């Protein structure tokens, strides 16, 4: 599991996990029951949260659509960003004896406006406030730190608690009335008194003016000192403490923009080798670079690419092979990539082809033409690993999301919706049918709702808790508690 396992909870998590996957080994048939269906349903409606924060209407707007979800390294906190530039941080409830069923519920901890809409007057360009990515920093003191980015600017936020405030003035009395200065006969030093817990979010650093194109990824290095920000054509390396200078480490911009054939779609640092990172491209390849060899990493040290199957070639081949997300496994041994129809796992020691390929929604292969016409084919789905790198999760349409077990090769489709599941009920697997005969409980390809898509999901670093963003709703599911 990840190097930064929390000291307190890891024991319990591990037990939970062990029992979960032991039952899987014993009885493969019932595994889906124990692994996925028992994910308890506890839904958080971000609209409600946002109501109290900014909006006083009860319907969701474009700005409420969640654009990124991320757990911190202990899983105690979960951050979401939305199209309105807001970041909402949830904190896990401490276990309490009175309300055992509330264990693991996430409640709002802090909400703040991270980015505002801007206008670049030099380029006559509107800069959206939408949060493209959030990344947590390793915890360094009692406060929490995260990086959030929109298309152009990365910000470092500090989220800290305050539970004391100073009392006692010399020139004012307790009610704030000004005292007559001539009556001052002695000096008072303020005293700190306890107060209700207050959570503050303060911007600590603003990293701007380094990207000409839109930032699609940020990734914190395992050296705890640097991070990289990636746009369509370039990757920049920053020191977390220096905002006025960044180093360009990858630049694929051709001298003549008409020769442009490929863009960078995502990039990530290796979880523990500080000099290694990967980036994926719109042509379906992944490049692994070693920052030790040279300052500019234009020459990759590994190129992962699957040879194209000529029999499957079509007008859409290149579009659907574009990689929308790339993630290192927690161990650093594997890479997971998501393209339009599949999730692939690559061994970083084998460049020629993926180790495993999983179909996410192969039934869409026949509908690519209409998906293209409606631009859905360009949707960027993300993908995540579970804490032990044994299960993959990624989203689909119709509020469906998919999980794949790498050991048993079993998979499941689940739905995040309020209509079809009740809080704390066990999730039912869903099935999409192709062709005429539709069984009960199945849904036909033609009735899928493509406007309801699950692009962003997150998996707790060491427990079976997942967060799924379905447009403006955030769903949190977890293992059934005995």
């Amino acid at each position, binding site marked *: 599991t990840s190097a930064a396992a929390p000291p307190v909870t890891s024991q319990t998590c591990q037990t939970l996990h062990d029992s979960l996957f032991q039952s899987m080994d014993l009885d493969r048939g019932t595994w889906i029951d124990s692994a996925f269906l028992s994910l308890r349903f506890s839904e958080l409606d971000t609209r409600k949260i946002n109501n109290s924060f900014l909006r006083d209407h009860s319907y969701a707007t474009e700005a409420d659509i969640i654009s990124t979800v991320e757990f911190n390294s202990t899983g105690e906190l979960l951050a979401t960003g939305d199209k309105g530039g807001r970041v909402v941080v949830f904190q896990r409830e401490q276990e309490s004896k009175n309300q055992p069923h509330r264990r693991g519920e996430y409640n709002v901890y802090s909400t703040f406006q991270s980015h505002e809409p801007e206008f670049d007057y030099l380029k006559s360009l509107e800069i959206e406030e939408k949060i493209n990515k959030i990344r947590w920093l390793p915890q360094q003191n009692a406060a929490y730190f995260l990086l959030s980015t929109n298309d152009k600017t990365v910000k470092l936020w500090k989220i800290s608690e305050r539970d004391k405030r100073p009392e006692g003035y010399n020139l004012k009395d307790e009610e704030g009335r000004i005292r007559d*200065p001539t009556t*001052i006969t002695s000096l008072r030093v303020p005293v700190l008194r306890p107060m209700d817990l207050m959570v503050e979010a303060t911007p600590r650093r603003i990293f701007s003016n380094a990207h000409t194109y839109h930032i699609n990824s940020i990734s914190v290095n395992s050296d705890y000192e640097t991070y990289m920000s990636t746009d369509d054509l370039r990757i920049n390396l920053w020191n977390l403490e220096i905002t006025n200078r960044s180093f360009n480490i990858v630049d694929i911009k051709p001298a003549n923009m008409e020769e442009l054939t490929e863009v960078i779609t995502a990039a990530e640092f290796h979880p523990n080798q*500080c000099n290694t990172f990967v980036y994926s491209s719109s042509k379906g390849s992944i490049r692994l670079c070693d920052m030790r060899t040279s300052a500019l990493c234009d020459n990759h040290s590994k190129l992962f690419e699957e040879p194209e199957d000529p029999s499957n070639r079509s007008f859409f081949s290149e579009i659907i092979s574009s990689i929308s997300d790339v993630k290192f496994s927690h161990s650093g041994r594997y890479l997971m990539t998501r393209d339009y129809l599949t999730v692939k796992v690559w061994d970083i020691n084998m460049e020629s082809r993926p180790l495993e390929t999983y179909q996410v929604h192969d039934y869409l292969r026949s509908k690519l033409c209409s998906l293209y016409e409606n631009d859905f084919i360009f949707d960027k789905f993300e993908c995540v690993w579970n804490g032990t790198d044994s299960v993959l999760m990624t989203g689909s349409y119709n509020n469906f999301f998919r999980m794949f077990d790498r050991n048993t090769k079993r998979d499941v489709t689940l739905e995040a919706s309020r209509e079809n599941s009740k809080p704390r009920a066990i999730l039912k697997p869903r099935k999409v049918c192709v062709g005429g005969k539709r069984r009960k409980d199945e849904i036909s390809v033609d009735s899928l709702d493509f406007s309801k898509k699950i692009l962003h999901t997150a998996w707790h670093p060491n427990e079976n808790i997942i967060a799924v963003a379905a447009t403006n709703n955030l769903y949190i599911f977890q293992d059934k508690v005995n």
Partner: protein
Amino acid sequence: MAGAEGDDSLYPIAVLIDELRNEDVQLRLNSIKKLSTIALALGVERTRTELLPFLTDTIYDEDEVLLALAEQLGSFTVLVGGPEFVHCLLPPLESLATVEETVVRDKAVESLRKISQEHSPVDLEVHFVPLVKRLASGDWFTSRTSACGLFGVCYPRVSSTVKAEIRQHFRTLCSDDTPMVRRAASSKLGEFAKVLELDYVKSDIIPLFTALASDEQDSVRLLAVEAGVSIAALLPQEDLEDLVMPTLRQAAEDKSWRVRYMVADKFSELQKAVGPEITKNDLVPAFQNLLKDCEAEVRTAAANKVKVFCESLPEDSRETIIMTHILPCVKELVSDTNQHVKSALASVIMGLSTILGKDNTVEHLLPLFLVQLKDEYPEVRLNIISNLDCVNEVIGIRQLSQSLLPAIVELAEDAKWRVRLAIIEYMPLLAGQLGVEFFDEKLNSLCMAWLIDHVYAIREAATCNLMKLVEKFGAEWAQNTIVPKVLGMANDSNYLHRMTTLFCINALSEVCGQEITTKHMLPVVLKMSTDQVANVRFNVARCLQKIGPVLDSSALQAEVKPVLEKLATDQDMDVKYFALEAISVLALA
């Protein structure tokens, strides 16, 4: 302290105390900066019991306030009652040493180091060392990084038992889980080694150094290089080969270019620390490799060190080493593919001529200079030109003049105005070295052409350049060569060029002296007072003000005064303003 009736002297202090928590950061900052005034008014007792506890808990504030606080506390000993009570300052500094902002933490550590000296040996063990241990075993890496900087100051002043504990704590931090802490430990390793007994340097520090120098994180390894230099300086010569050199050799060939860069960057210090023998046997080949490194950043850093490295080579073998080992690499660098490498080399290569002497310079270096003078990148050419004085001393600049001239002309006409600006600044130096004859023949026209450059900054620099040339070549030269040309521009159809005449006169009048100014320049200036462009007219007023002190009083009264008076009634506001200003400054009213 305070009287029963309100005390007027308390009011300003009361304001300061209240403003410690004002909404406005600037006011809080002001208050913190006057913390000593507050403490003085409160007295030592209340400072200890009330003010410091309050400050200990105010670590929520803005960085700049915390930074000021950390700094203030470093010189607060007297205000808490002297060295006897200095330990009262530890709690607020301890909390400041855990904040996330590096500058604040560093300042807190600096203050802690400062006040550690004011602790008695007993207090140091009772109060200070426990604080260091708390920080060293803190939950968060911010506190552990701060601890790294504190071991060195307590170590020399504590008992041997505590010394052993301190060494143990340092060892632990060197293998901390987080790279942040290992980096801090790595960067303080050299300093800590300095206060340790030699035996412990060998038994404790060397293994730590070896471990950090092979850390999995590049950023830790590269800091170990610097520590290695400090440690090498501490060890007797006979131990260096066994204890330090294997690790340093390995660092010079590290897989990561950043580590090799660090070795290149610290090369002179390293050379000094290891002494002449190891330099000859080890550092020379290592330096050759760095000069041939595959990463341009490393070559740049190494190229920068060429001169210093050669200078510090042992005298008996200096020339041989340079000629047989270093020069071949330097020759390759002259045609490097990377402009930064060439530019770094160009900034130091001329320095080799003094080391190698006349014959070698003419035979081996001169061809290299000539190649670099023709380099495609202006920065390379500029760096050569800016260091001409070194060569001049050895072989005289004439050897170069044939190649120099085209290089200068090309730079003088470079499309980038910053390049033109840079070459102008070297003109006086070149003029001095090439002599007046050569200058008149080849460079004078360039200097005049800059006066009508389309970029103001160039015209301005050109004006200033003329003044410096006159300082070198004298007033007579000025009168014969440049003054006529400058004055000729007064009739130019472009008003910007007419103004340049005025600016030149401003700059030249003093160096040219009264006679030339009165006889040649003044009539031109006065004539320009009727220019149709207001900008020219008000610059006439400013010019008169500037050259006034050079003129004699009869000329002032008879010629300058009437013109200024006329300009003072000009319909343009600015012309009037500057005319009146000139009249008052020259006392002509």
